């Protein structure tokens, strides 16, 4: 696997989740990876494009893949946002599966994409591009067995025909990564349940229900904190807890931390660079 990866941050990492961008870049640097941001990247189309303009939703990520393949001449791109990752994998899958779609997408993009780029999510970068042995070898500040519920959410593994995830209902690669940095991954039930995603903008009550159910299970299974690999999951699981507490005064908060912040801390990145002050639920118990 190449040690230089193209990098697609996506809109959220430049917006509400700057600490995800910063911690991912810093952890990659500490792990010997070089990231090259795709010049002039466009939005991947996110949740909106595939329910408004289907062809555009396929073309946007494929356009970025063509840039990586033909302009940057790299064979892998890191896409840490789980939603962007899903659009990239879906776009590549659709042009690879169907010649008609491929022809339409080629007309929109203005050039063909030849399928030469591996798309890696945050977990893939640590698990595959770096590798678990290499990751463990670079740890300078291991966590002393902090219990972590690894939350994969929806789009790191689903749909498996697109992501090729080994076990979409009970994935374990993130668990392997947190274990390599000295945490203890717990077994729990809501690893891949939906947090409500962008309904947080319009249907906050539903999101509060879903978030409470997920976090209650993490706590019941003994987690000290939840690790996430998606900016929207992080905003929802961390941010909605104050509202859940307002509705239910017996609510016990639980920290929700980006996987890149856990890994970054373990391989010696400074707290300032990791953006540890941006959490709404206090994370001192885990990251002290």
């Amino acid at each position: 696997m190449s040690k230089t990866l193209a990098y697609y941050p996506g809109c959220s990492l430049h917006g509400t989740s700057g600490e995800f961008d910063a911690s991912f870049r810093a952890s990659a640097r500490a792990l010997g990876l070089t990231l090259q941001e795709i010049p002039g990247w466009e939005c991947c189309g996110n949740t909106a494009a595939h329910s408004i303009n289907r062809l555009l939703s396929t073309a946007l990520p494929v356009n970025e893949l063509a840039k990586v393949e033909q302009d940057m001449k790299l064979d892998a791109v890191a896409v840490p946002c789980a939603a962007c990752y899903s659009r990239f994998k879906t776009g590549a899958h659709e042009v690879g599966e169907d010649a008609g779609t491929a022809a339409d997408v080629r007309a929109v993009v203005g050039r063909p994409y030849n399928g030469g780029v591996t798309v890696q999510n945050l977990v893939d970068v640590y698990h595959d591009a770096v590798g678990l042995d290499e990751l463990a070898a670079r740890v300078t500040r291991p966590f002393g067995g902090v219990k972590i519920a690894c939350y994969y959410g929806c789009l790191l593994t689903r749909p498996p025909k697109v992501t090729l995830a080994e076990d979409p209902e009970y994935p374990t690669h993130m668990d392997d990564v947190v274990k390599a940095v000295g945490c203890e991954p717990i077994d729990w039930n809501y690893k891949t349940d939906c947090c409500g995603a962008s309904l947080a903008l319009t249907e906050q009550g539903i999101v509060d229900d879903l978030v409470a159910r997920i976090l209650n299970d993490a706590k019941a299974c003994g987690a000290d904190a939840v690790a996430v690999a998606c900016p929207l999951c992080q905003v929802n699981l961390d941010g909605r807890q104050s509202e859940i507490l307002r509705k239910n005064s017996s609510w016990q908060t639980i920290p929700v931390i980006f996987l890149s912040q856990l890994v970054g801390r373990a391989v010696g990145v400074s707290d300032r660079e990791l953006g540890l002050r941006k959490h709404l639920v206090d994370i001192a118990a885990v990251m002290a």
Partner: protein
Amino acid sequence: MATCTVSPLLAENVGTGCGENAYKCYQCKRCTSGCPVALYSEMHPAMIMRAVQLGQLDMVFDDRFIWLCTGCETCTTRCPQGIDIAAIMDELKIIARRDGRIPADTPSAAMLKLNYDSFVRWGRMWEVELIARDVLKRPASVRSWLSLGPKMMLKGKINPTLKKGDTLAMQRMVRTSESITSAKMQRQADAAASAATASGGAGPAHSGGES
């Protein structure tokens, strides 16, 4: 009794749009049992699938279910018939928007459009713009923003600035994709019209035989 709108072409139009065959559904309801939002509306995924098969437009489009679908892909992952149910929900959203069948008080539908317009305008989606435009359209939403917004601002979670993408390239791709899609729809409409003419032509000949 209330009248209802039925279109025998609904399942076919869904199929042409997204390539999925709704008739393969045999109502096992695995989609519904795993759906995170099935409890929050009258309809649920298996009911939507049945209504699509039967061409029951009102059942599909008067309910808010399709607008609550988060696209979590659990239904698609678990369907024993391999139907990409989430893609069907997307196609129904496309049809509802095109045919003016978005129910009143469906903020999620409006938000998707704000989101789309934002990244088309700037090349990238600008979160702060979404919130501002949503509050302008829906003043009542300011209360839910106030519960979280100030806390996020104090923590420096909200970045008010935007670095634009390649807006010219974005707008070119939007135009090309729209023209390819509308040409495809036109061909489809022409084919349906000529099929109707053909069967209409057979009609009089048949009734002529009866007389």
